[in-house]
């Protein structure tokens, strides 16, 4: 059992941290996390700026096989995610780079790979994930939107929902029914298409803090060339492959590590009744507990990376990291907003402690627990497939 990095990895990690620290200086005021990427033009432009910096270093294709321009090493991707998380830097399109690219590598034809991988590696193209529908959330396979073949094209109709960043996306990937009369799980295809075509209507769904992250997307006889990942009508198998590439969590964990450092600094510098918060035994106990939880999450995320390196099943550990990290984020936000008292509710303004960070985190932690398979779905997966408990019908 060895948690150490090679000298080569340490060097690369230093380089990742150095570039991210540099990019942090260009960050727009009040920018935080994935959410800020989609809320404003300035946020999205900052994301693209970072993406270009990463693309020119080949960092958007890090773990890809060498014939597609990567280093072939999973650990590089983990180290890069650590640095980005710690400095809270966007620039890695969650949908294109983190989810779609590895899925293409695993499932797509050579033709599709050659068409789309260079596009993803360039950092110029933003993707969105057309997944949930109004009546197909956790039970995604129950979807209703269709893509009906017409020669070499698909005619797309229906509605998707909770589509993060659709308003900035150039391309979309999603699952649509391509054989509406077929059997469940064998009636849909995983397809790719241009989002900037007539027939696509995007309507924002504002988050509780009025941020524009999510959208409803409507398709009205959208005609697109048929670009399929995997086999036609067998998109469900591809969906399951992609699920394995949804966030490893190490970036979120390192973001919390940085938040912890900021919180310690704040507690050391802020006096209540003339005594630094840091001397309050309750604050000490609760922050220490969070610190241990963050470290535990990090160690388990390394375990997931290690399993991937050995080409082994990550199902249990990956779900565990996802659930645990989101729970820690929620507890952390709750603790900090409690600690700040009435000031915990203040938005970014001259009255806000820590730039209103915790007022945002108190709302944004739901992004971790609900998206990419809710925590409850993760626990089902663990119970059914990991522990072989019977599936209730």
């Amino acid at each position, binding site marked *: 059992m060895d948690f150490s*990095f090679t000298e080569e990895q340490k060097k690369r990690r230093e380089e990742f941290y150095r570039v991210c620290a540099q990019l942090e200086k260009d960050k727009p005021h009040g920018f935080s996390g994935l959410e800020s990427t989609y809320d404003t033009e300035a946020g999205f432009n900052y994301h693209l700026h970072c993406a270009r910096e990463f693309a020119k270093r080949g960092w958007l294709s890090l773990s890809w096989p060498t014939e597609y321009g990567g280093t072939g090493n999973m650990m590089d991707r983990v180290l890069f995610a650590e640095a980005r998380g710690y400095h809270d830097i966007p620039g890695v399109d969650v949908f294109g780079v983190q989810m779609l690219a590895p899925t293409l590598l695993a499932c797509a034809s050579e033709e599709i790979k050659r068409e789309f991988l260079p596009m993803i590696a360039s950092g110029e193209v933003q993707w969105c994930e057309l997944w949930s529908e109004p009546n197909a959330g956790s039970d995604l396979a129950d979807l209703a939107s269709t893509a009906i073949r017409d020669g070499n094209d698909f005619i797309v109709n229906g509605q998707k929902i909770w589509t993060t960043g659709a308003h900035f996306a150039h391309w979309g990937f999603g699952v649509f029914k391509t054989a509406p009369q077929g059997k469940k799980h064998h009636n849909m295809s995983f397809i790719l298409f241009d989002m900037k075509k007539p027939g696509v209507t995007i309507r924002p769904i504002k988050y509780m803090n009025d941020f524009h992250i999510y959208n409803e997307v409507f398709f009205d006889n959208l005609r697109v060339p048929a670009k399929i990942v995997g086999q036609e009508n067998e998109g469900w198998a591809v969906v399951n492959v992609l699920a394995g590439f949804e966030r490893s969590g190490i970036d979120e964990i390192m973001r919390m590590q940085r938040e912890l450092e900021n919180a310690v600094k704040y507690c050391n510098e802020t006096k209540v009744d003339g005594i630094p918060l840091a001397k309050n035994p309750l604050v000490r106990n609760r922050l220490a507990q969070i610190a241990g939880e963050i470290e*535990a999450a990090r*160690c388990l995320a390394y375990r997931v990376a*290690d399993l991937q390196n050995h080409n082994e099943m990550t199902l249990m550990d990956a779900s*565990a990291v996802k659930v645990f990290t989101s729970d820690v984020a929620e507890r952390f936000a709750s603790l900090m907003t409690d600690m700040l008292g009435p000031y915990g509710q203040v938005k970014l303004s001259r009255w806000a402690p820590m730039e209103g960070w915790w007022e945002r985190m108190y709302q944004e932690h739901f992004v971790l627990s609900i998206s990419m398979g809710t925590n*409850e779905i993760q626990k089902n997966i663990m119970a059914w497939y990991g522990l072989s408990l019977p599936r209730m019908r």
Partner: protein
Amino acid sequence: MDLKLTEEQEMLKTSVKDFIAAECPKSKVREMQEDRVGHSPELWKKMAALGWMGLLIPEKYEGMGLSFQDGMVVMEEMGRNILPGPFMSTFVATFAIVEAGSEAQKKEFLPKIARGEMKLSLADMEPNGKFGAGGVTLKAAPKGDGFVLNGAKMFVEMANVADYLVCPARTKEGANSEEGISLFLVDMKSPGILCEVVPTIAMDKLCEVKFENVSILHQALLGEKDRGGVALKNTLRKAALARCADSIGGMQACIDMTVAYMKERVQYERPIGAFQAIQHIVADTWIAMQTARYLAYEAIWLESGGQPADKEASMSKAYVNNAYKLVSKWGIRLHGGIGTSREHDVSLYYLRAKAADTAYGGADYHNELVADKIGLVK
């Protein structure tokens, strides 16, 4: 990075697991718990024959000279099966001798420990119930060529069968609690020692040891006089990690047995494991176990590689304490009534978890150390 056990470690793990399953079934665990002494000389002899007492003792003192990490693989298996008796106490006290002992002391003690001819215990706690150096008040006053001990130790594991105690005592009042501590190797046959087993939740033979004018020779001093605080701290850190490993094994056993029962117990015409209310709890316990496991593995790896990490070790002990309590509590709850019975194995783990919780530092104690290490000003 490679988080797998080595082939040798896998072999060691299997051999310990098989041995304990065969030689110390749960009926034997209960018998030893209920027994007044709680030690089985036959079992001890068989374990000694396999070399386990000398796992981490250097080869030149007749030990196996394995790494700290290897030792923790063994501890995990012992915890999985709730091995009672003086193994843990001897294992932990030996750390202090390996670290602080003179060449003469090592030559005298270590081979005997490795051969299973000597049992030890670390007397870290006192009636004040405080963890760490801050709790050490036992007086060791100079007398002639040696010292005289007056005071008491408390919760000393298996002191009732120990031949020697590694006993921290105060030889000087220091500016902070770690200063002025000396470690002594105290022969339990010394006149003036009174040892009594305290009835505890896990029936694990924690003892009160009273010292009334107990004379000890200068040779009994382990390490430098007044400067035993560092060795005590290092020993306690290793002890805390050993306890973590033991607890991780215990959590695994709890979960394995609970999942098996959830598949087998039928109510409402289906196995109760088919109910999501139960599936989600089982998943939660698994998450608690696995996060605890890798947090502790990291600290163990650091310790094993000679980069002892107080922060990571304290984080681990605080976290594992709570995780083991949670996992074993749900073990009982999901079993229902049968889980609460003395006859069912799962209750043994619940009791063990409480004992583990207070051995070598509770969660609040360790979290206070963590608060310090993450930079909160005191």
